[in-house]
């Protein structure tokens, strides 16, 4: 396939990548940009491990061709927080045991960040619904729900993460 250049904003930085138009955003992020925090679980949009935010919307990056992502603003797990400044959702996952094997964690955290942006004080049902596109095989979700509830409280209280 012929290569083309695409520009997009990734974690706040303008990037230009060269890729076939139908290359999956997931592969471009992981292989071209070295952002391996975004994981592949199923390659068919079922598991949500490859979740990223495109212009603030939660999407499965395995289903998005790079041509469609051109010109957008993308947030991956690498853009959510840093060692020195965890996002409240990341801090809450750490505290509440929201991560076990960790492979669904980046996508799950992005889904949780997205949920709390749309719905800052979610009920348990809203959390269950907000995370229903992200499969976790380790936790049974209970610690993840607890983490989202805790993060909502932290964000509401305005405590820096």
């Amino acid at each position: 396939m012929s290569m083309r250049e695409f520009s997009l904003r990734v974690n706040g930085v303008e990037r230009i990548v060269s890729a076939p138009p139908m290359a999956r955003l997931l592969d471009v992020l992981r292989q071209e940009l070295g952002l391996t925090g975004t994981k592949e679980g199923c390659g068919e949009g079922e598991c949500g491990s490859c979740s990223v935010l495109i212009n603030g919307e939660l999407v499965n990056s395995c289903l998005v061709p790079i041509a469609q992502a051109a010109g957008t603003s993308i947030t991956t797990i690498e853009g959510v927080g840093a060692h020195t400044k965890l996002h409240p959702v990341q801090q809450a996952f750490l505290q509440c045991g929201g991560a076990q094997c960790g492979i669904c964690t980046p996508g799950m955290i992005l889904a949780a960040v997205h949920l709390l942006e749309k719905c800052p004080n979610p009920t348990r049902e809203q959390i269950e619904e907000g995370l229903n596109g992200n499969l976790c095989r380790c936790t049974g979700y209970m610690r993840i729900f607890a983490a989202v509830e805790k993060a909502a409280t932290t964000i509401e209280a305005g405590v820096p993460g």
Partner: protein
Amino acid sequence: MQSERVVGQPVFRKEGLAKVLGAARYIDDLSMPGMIYGATVRSAIPRGRVLGIEFSPGIPWDEFTIVTAKDIPGKNYIAMINNDWPCLVDGVVNHPQEPILLLAHPDRHLLPQAVAAVHVRYEEMSSVHSIEESERGRTIIWGEDNVLKSYLLEKGDVDAAFAQPDIIIVVGEYTTGAQEHLYIENNGAIAMYDEHAGVTLWGSLQCPFYAHKSLMAVTGLPEDKVRVIQVETGGAFGGKEDYPSMIGAHAALLAMKSGRPVKIVYDRAEDMAATTKRHPSRTRHRTAVTKDGKLLAADIELCLDGGAYSTLSSTVLSRATIHSGGAYFWPNIRVRSKAYATNTPPHGAFRGFGAPQALFATERHMDRVAKAVGLTPEEFRRRNLLLTGETTSTGQVIRQQIDLQGWMERALDCANYREKKARFDRENPDGVRKKGIGFAVFLHGSGFTGSGERYLNSLVGVDATAEGRIRVLVSSTEFGQGTNTILCQIAAETLGVDYDVVEMAPPDTGIVPNSGPTVASRTAMVVGRLVQSAALGLKQTLIASGLLGERYLTEEFQAAAKAHIGKHGGLCSMSRYQAPPDVYWDDQTYRGEAYAAYAWAVYVAEVTVEVTTYSVAVDDFVALQEVGRVLNPVLATGQVEGGVAQGIGYALYEKVSWDRGLMKNNQMTNYIIPTSQDLPKIRVYFEEVPFEHGAYGAKGIGELPMDGPAPAILNAIAHATGEDFNAIPLLPEDIAERLAAGAPAAQEMATV
């Protein structure tokens, strides 16, 4: 018991920060200079002879590295118990998706078309696809009789017990399906070869020394020329116990032939179709019980479908056999068990390892026995649950102070069982939704069975670095369960230092000793205990050398360690497994101490069955267990919740659809696991009775939660519908078929 500083505390997961940042590096996140990519050509038939392999034109074959069985420098098997599992097909195919040929190329995207362009010609042979077909023996596909392994466990005089007058005999047959692990990270490995260093393998795996042993056999290289390094592993559940040895061997063969590092990472469809699953089972119970509800005798016949090669089936069958008696006192019990070969990819280890199959049958059956004698499930169990001082089905005396009756009462109270049961009984006749509540009481043996731990002879180390950091040296791996965290907690506790200064040495066979495989709920209890004793040795060395006083701060400990290293060049303490002195086990008769300890549990499930759609929802779930000392309450709770979720999937959602040994629904789209919207609130309770030979009193926890959900849920469904469903997975169509037919369940009870 509560005086510990670190043990029992909800300290953060050691590698948690890297995981929440997305910085943890899994196998597909790694790359090596000059690395190329490998793929596998697999069999398209269940059984037959390979007549020829043809390479279609249109693919630049000269750019590919191609490996067949002829390229194997060592032995063509994955080294396990019987060594009957070929690394690559050599003439005969025994199951669909069996690896025949390997390809490697620098362009990962070229591989799928290349794999599709390899055509294998076969002469098909008749194949076997169920326990019943294998048992019938018309086609023999393994050994002389298709039996991969059999056991006979016998206690008391079963036949005499059944011949007694005035007894009630209850029979039943219970079946369980295959279950896919569905770890979210697919299997993968990277291998590198160099004439001087030999083979180095990086992999998503549970047991570095298992892969090490297989690589030695396949490559023919000596021990010191094979090195295995576990990288961050995205879930395993038993599914990365044996198969990584296969993928690792494949990557190593391609690396040896190409001279370049080779990465093989399966996609989801390949992982699901080709790798192991939980053994399907069929269990028949015949129970003799007195009219006042005392169990007299069990006659149990348990069969597993092992797939095409023996792999781990003998050990899975062993655990199933021993767990068949459940948490009850049987004066007489006989278990006859067999694992049968079928032309299906070998079934393997999956959390619970035979116990979920056995305990599904037992706990479903006990509800039916209770009904036959006119007792409630709880009263019937109360009369028969094991007591301290009584013996299990292998004749093992329960020495631990257990209180199964009390724990059952507590769990039932937590679930508000009696009130709900009465209410559902009252309301169900008029409702379009039928509600039910049911439970299961069960046990899970911690560690390897019988003499297994003695054979493993595990070795563990604790050392200090020149920077004064403390390291735990084990081959026990982290794949979500919390190995890193609890072993560091144990070391920190014993050394009297902060948790933060203790770390895990890399899980690299070139660095760490063999502390055994990370399986069988053995890490906290067995390996943890060895970490405790190695850490104690390290501390005593420092105190004896005069560098450390009896009371010290973490910094003083670190300074003393550095001083010791400065003076002597190193500071390391090793500890090797020693069996408790009073343990007896006979591998031939299956008599004695089957496990050093058992964990115990009572799980209560509340369900709603929709009579219009026949769907089942689990509305509430109480999980009460006694697992010895809880080393980290957040991690332990997470283990239980995750196990319960997998158990709910096993009971109600997860169905592998087979077509002549091939999994047809090998996608996440049509193999359904519980999502965030499918689970009830899982309420976790612990009882803690410290076990004297476990680390700070810990026993095993990881597998236990897989054993109880399915029977508890099916017992609740029986309560809701009045129908006995004795097979899992139980899908809406199965319920529809029974309820819509309106026919009463076949009565399998007879009174003598």
